[in-house]
């Protein structure tokens, strides 16, 4: 493998040398608030001549590549006076732009410049959704759902029909960890996984790390999603109210004069319970059986309080809370000969989460830049199923009663802290730091079986405490002309009462001409995760079982090697092509037939397995102009071990969906009206069905022995903006699955009375679904 990789590297370098272009200079710097010294994200910076436009990132950074000569930089930032700077660029130049808050209240503001309207790719290959792209990103079901937007990116594969799950580079769903204000966590989806809790309206920007991971990041064996919650963009109150199909909510930006703090907050509520009864009436039985319970509701909310000044730097506090609950009980009576059988089946599902995260970034103008984090996270999941049967003879007292219930309510509490120091400039920088997480797991997995008054209770797992310290160093430098080295090492630990695990995680990226039109790079990272998310393979109901490391279950460790190219063309197009190979050890999966109700211990239910994945991902994005959009294609293979009687064999994993093609486009007729579409094609998801029938039962040879039908759909979207005094009205009309493709949610074994044979009925949840969303901004 590595011999082949060396040859590949050599070819990349050879190709890179052959495409070095004429002399260019890099013009970069920060956009800063002159009074407070805080960086301004989402500001638009123009460079002329050349008509180049960029948007500053979350740190206020901007970069242009241009030819030497006389240049002019100008800015447009909402709430700030425009700035104009003229200068002579002879070599790479750093210009920090200081802008003043506009002293008068702004009326209606329309930015007529050609701002970036698409996802951006960073120099380390991660994807950033900026404020501009968040506004323009395709909104499936009209829902501003971050994970659904990520599903359209190269290297990311969507979960089952309608699910907001993501598989990144062949990894598991639970290997994607979220980072917000220094706090790491993972949340399940709302409505049994159909809606993610990450609302785009709550976010300033979001970054998906999947290629290179800076050494300060750790905890996810597949990807890390870094969220930056909303910040105010002006000195006056801003508010937004949104009425949508799946959820409605509001956000408020409230800058406070005394003391000088900024407050942003938002809340949204799921609307499903309002129309679920009607939906179930018009849907077929197979579909309504798989829809969430009628009274299912959810809430997401956040509050961010931040203070920024030249003296103290930036201090911010984030509260992110989520609530999700639904309950469904179904009763059925049937008669078998002289016996009346009453069944009652119930499902209660829900979870709640809270994140308290405090972050202090010391002033950025010092030699050593410090950042401190202190956070607390508590996630509690609750799921209970029960099946009650009463058998009686012609209405007499029941002669047999049984109750089988399984409740699953793990709680994970985490106290996290970190300290990070950074020195250096744009040409080289050094970062070092320490982090620690103290995690408390309460598994609360209880299965109860009552037969004729005899009760049997089983408890799975035991409470545990895990200390996860880590120390990291990273170094970034321009080695030679345009050769950028980004490197680091992280040592992560997991300490429990009877064992300790340490993982050394080297990180390395070598890139050439990172802002050029053809920038080759190679990448190697090792990632570790000290908890296990175990996915079931049943009909769409993921078990969401989270287990900490234990003496028998060590950490999951991924080694990812990737190489490829990325580049920018005319500051309008971004393209990327990457090949990757990933090897993961220490994963945990359910054994065939594993059941909390009928097994006695976790050891009876779980296997330790290894996984491997490889693929090729490519994307082209047009960021500016009347027509914006992207095309991405990912060839992704993912395999995992399977314990067959003849030994371990490799079988496709749930993430093995080889072909993924996403085409998105948005045409802006003018500044008020736009029309867009997404077309998505994904190979069918692997699934397990019994393949052979016998007189004593059915059997199959291996798990994931079939694939569901290929998944594809077209979404159409139309947006019109109306400005009315201080209000902006955004009207979004979307059509989800415009040509009514019956994408598979699962296959239901069905008997055909006519042909007297069994077949599998394709059960699809989401037909063509038009939706309307009204957003009012003040």
């Amino acid at each position, binding site marked *: 493998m590595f011999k082949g990789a060396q040859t590949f590297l050599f070819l990349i370098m050879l190709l890179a040398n052959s495409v070095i272009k004429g002399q260019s200079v890099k013009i970069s710097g920060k956009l800063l608030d002159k009074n407070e010294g805080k960086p301004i994200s989402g500001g638009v910076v123009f460079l002329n001549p050349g008509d180049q436009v960029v948007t500053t990132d979350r740190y206020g950074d901007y970069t242009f590549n241009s030819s030497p000569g006389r240049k002019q930089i100008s800015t447009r930032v909402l709430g700030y006076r425009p700035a104009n700077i003229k200068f002579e660029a002879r070599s790479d130049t750093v210009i920090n732009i200081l802008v003043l808050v506009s002293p008068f209240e702004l009326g209606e503001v329309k930015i007529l410049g050609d701002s970036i309207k698409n996802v951006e790719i960073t120099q380390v290959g991660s994807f950033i959704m900026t404020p501009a792209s968040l506004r323009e990103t395709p909104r499936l079901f009209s829902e501003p759902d971050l994970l659904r937007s990520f599903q359209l990116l190269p290297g990311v594969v969507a979960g089952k029909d309608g699910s907001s799950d993501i598989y990144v580079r062949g990894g598991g769903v639970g290997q994607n960890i979220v980072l917000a204000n220094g706090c790491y966590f993972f949340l399940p989806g709302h409505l049994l996984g159909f809606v993610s809790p990450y609302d785009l309206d709550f976010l300033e920007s979001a970054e998906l790390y999947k290629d290179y991971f800076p050494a300060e990041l750790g905890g996810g064996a597949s990807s890390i999603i870094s969220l930056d919650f909303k910040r105010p963009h002006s000195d006056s109150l801003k508010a937004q109210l949104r009425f949508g199909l799946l959820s409605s909510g509001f956000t408020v930006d409230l800058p406070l004069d005394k003391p000088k703090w900024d407050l942003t907050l938002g809340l949204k509520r799921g609307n499903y319970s309002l129309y679920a009864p009607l939906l179930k009436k018009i849907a077929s039985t197979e579909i309504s059986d798989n829809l969430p319970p009628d009274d299912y509701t959810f809430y997401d909310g956040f509050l961010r309080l931040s203070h920024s000044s030249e003296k103290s730097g930036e201090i911010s506090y984030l509260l992110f809370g989520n609530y999700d609950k639904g309950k469904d009980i179904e009763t059925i009576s049937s008669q078998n000969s002289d016996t009346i059988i009453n069944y009652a089946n119930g499902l209660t599902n829900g979870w709640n989460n809270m994140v308290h995260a405090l972050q202090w970034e010391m002033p950025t103008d010092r030699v050593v830049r410090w950042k401190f984090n202190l956070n607390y996270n508590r996630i509690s999941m609750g799921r209970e199923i029960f099946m009650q049967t009463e058998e009686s003879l012609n209405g007499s007292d029941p*002669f047999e009663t049984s109750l089988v219930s399984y409740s699953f309510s793990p709680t994970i509490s985490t106290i996290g802290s970190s300290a990070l120091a950074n020195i250096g400039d744009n040409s080289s920088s050094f970062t070092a730091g320490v982090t620690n997480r103290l995690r408390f797991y309460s598994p609360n997995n209880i299965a109860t079986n009552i037969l004729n008054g005899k009760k049997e209770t089983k408890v799975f797992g035991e409470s545990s405490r895990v200390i996860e310290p880590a120390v990291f160093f990273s170094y970034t430098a321009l080695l030679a002309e345009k050769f950028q080295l980004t490197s680091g090492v992280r040592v992560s630990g997991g300490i429990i009462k009877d064992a300790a695990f340490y993982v050394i995680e080297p990180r390395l990226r070598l890139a050439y001409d990172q802002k050029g039109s053809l920038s080759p790079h190679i990448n190697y990272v090792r990632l570790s995760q000290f908890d296990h998310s175990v996915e079931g393979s*049943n009909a769409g109901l993921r078990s969401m079982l989270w287990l900490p490391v234990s003496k028998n279950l060590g950490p999951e460790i991924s080694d990812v090697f990737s190489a490829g190219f990325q580049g920018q063309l005319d500051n309008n197009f971004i393209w990327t092509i990457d090949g990757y190979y990933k090897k993961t050890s220490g994963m945990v999966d359910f054994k065939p*037939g594993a*059941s909390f*109700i009928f097994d006695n211990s976790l050891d009876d239910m779980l296997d330790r397995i290894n996984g491997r994945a490889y693929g090729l991902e490519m994307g082209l994005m047009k960021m500016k102009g009347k027509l914006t959009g992207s095309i991405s294609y990912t060839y992704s293979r993912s395999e995992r071990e399977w314990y067959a009687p003849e030994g371990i064999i490799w079988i496709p994993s749930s993430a093995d969906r080889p072909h993924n093609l996403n085409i998105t486009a948005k045409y802006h007729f003018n500044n008020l009206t736009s029309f867009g579409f997404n077309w998505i094609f994904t190979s069918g998801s692997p699934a397990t069905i019994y*393949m052979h029938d016998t007189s004593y039962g059915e059997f199959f040879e291996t798990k994931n022995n079939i694939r569901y039908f290929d998944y594809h759909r077209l979404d159409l979207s139309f947006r019109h903006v109306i400005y009315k005094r201080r209000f902006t009205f955004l009207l979004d009309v979307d059509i989800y699955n415009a040509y009514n493709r019956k994408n598979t949610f699962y296959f239901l074994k069905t008997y055909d009375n006519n042909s007297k044979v069994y*077949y*599998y009925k*394709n059960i699809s949840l989401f037909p063509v679904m038009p939706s309307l969303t009204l957003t009012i901004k003040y």
Partner: protein
Amino acid sequence: MKGYQKILIISKTFTICITIWILFVLASCEKKERFYRPNFPEQLCSVGIIDVDDTIKYGFSFLSIKDIRNSMRFITFEKSVQSEYPEVDDDTLDEFEFEISSENREIFSYRSSSKIKSPLKFEIPNNIKFNSGESYFLKANVKDLPLISSGTVVPNPPAPLTLISIKKEEVQISMSTNCTVRNTATSVHFDISFSNENDKKNYYAILLIGRGMIHMPLPYSGPLDFSVKETNTPGFFAEIQGLNTLHWVCTEEGLETNLFQVLGFFIDGSEIPGNSCNIKLSVQYNDGYSPIETFDRARIKLLSIPEEFYLFEKNLRNYTMVQKDPFSEPVYLKGNIINGNGVFAICRSSNLNIDLVTGKYE
């Protein structure tokens, strides 16, 4: 262009777009609503459960049902099927042959050059002996399918069962059907125990054979349903292929006896605390459901079984049970048959015979 002309053009364009879209939706509606399993080659399957120490054939000769497998020395063969491929599925075994051998000699074999209907059942003759600790092998072949093979080691006989107590009582029930009305039934509780060698990997199954009267003058001798009221060892009930019992069932034609699979109680010896397994079994009869009205003799059978049989039965029980659990995983039903499916197991047994009329037992 005047305003009304613009509106006209926009409305025409809109109408055309909507029409195209509706046609597109209608034309594109997914027609593949059905998925048929890939046509996998059939597999030869075998379930062979042989109790070395039991040579009794439990026949219900008074019934019109023929060809029932009711002994602990049966082996069956069949081809797996996929009913959606009737043109491929063939329920006959062509040029079938099989043999059971020890490490150095063939001890039973069968060959047929003609087509035989599947499933094919054989009763292993009583004169064939199997010894504890020795390995025995099964090979079977049918035309166009891979040869299947299996091997098993005969376990040691289980320790003798000890009867601690018997209790017989009248119980109140409420059963009223078109065929019969019952207010009382009889229960017999057997408190038994057996010892286990904890340093060895032992697996057990418990069965209950009863003799009584269906109704005068028809005698019944065969397996009976039982329940485990109390035990110091966890276990589970699973169907034992090859054994049947009878139940009374009220149908439109009246009260009938129907065949049901026998359930055995399976125990993993490593879960027996200490070295003694205590179990209280209970049998209910004279209740309109059990085949017998009188219960004269009971034989409690303790089988010492190979691990592969225990695991197969566990899978079989899980396969049945997890249908009720939406979070469960599909069950991998696999025994010890190589290139096919099923299980081949040779067991040893000890019996506790109890005369319920006199109270004597041995």
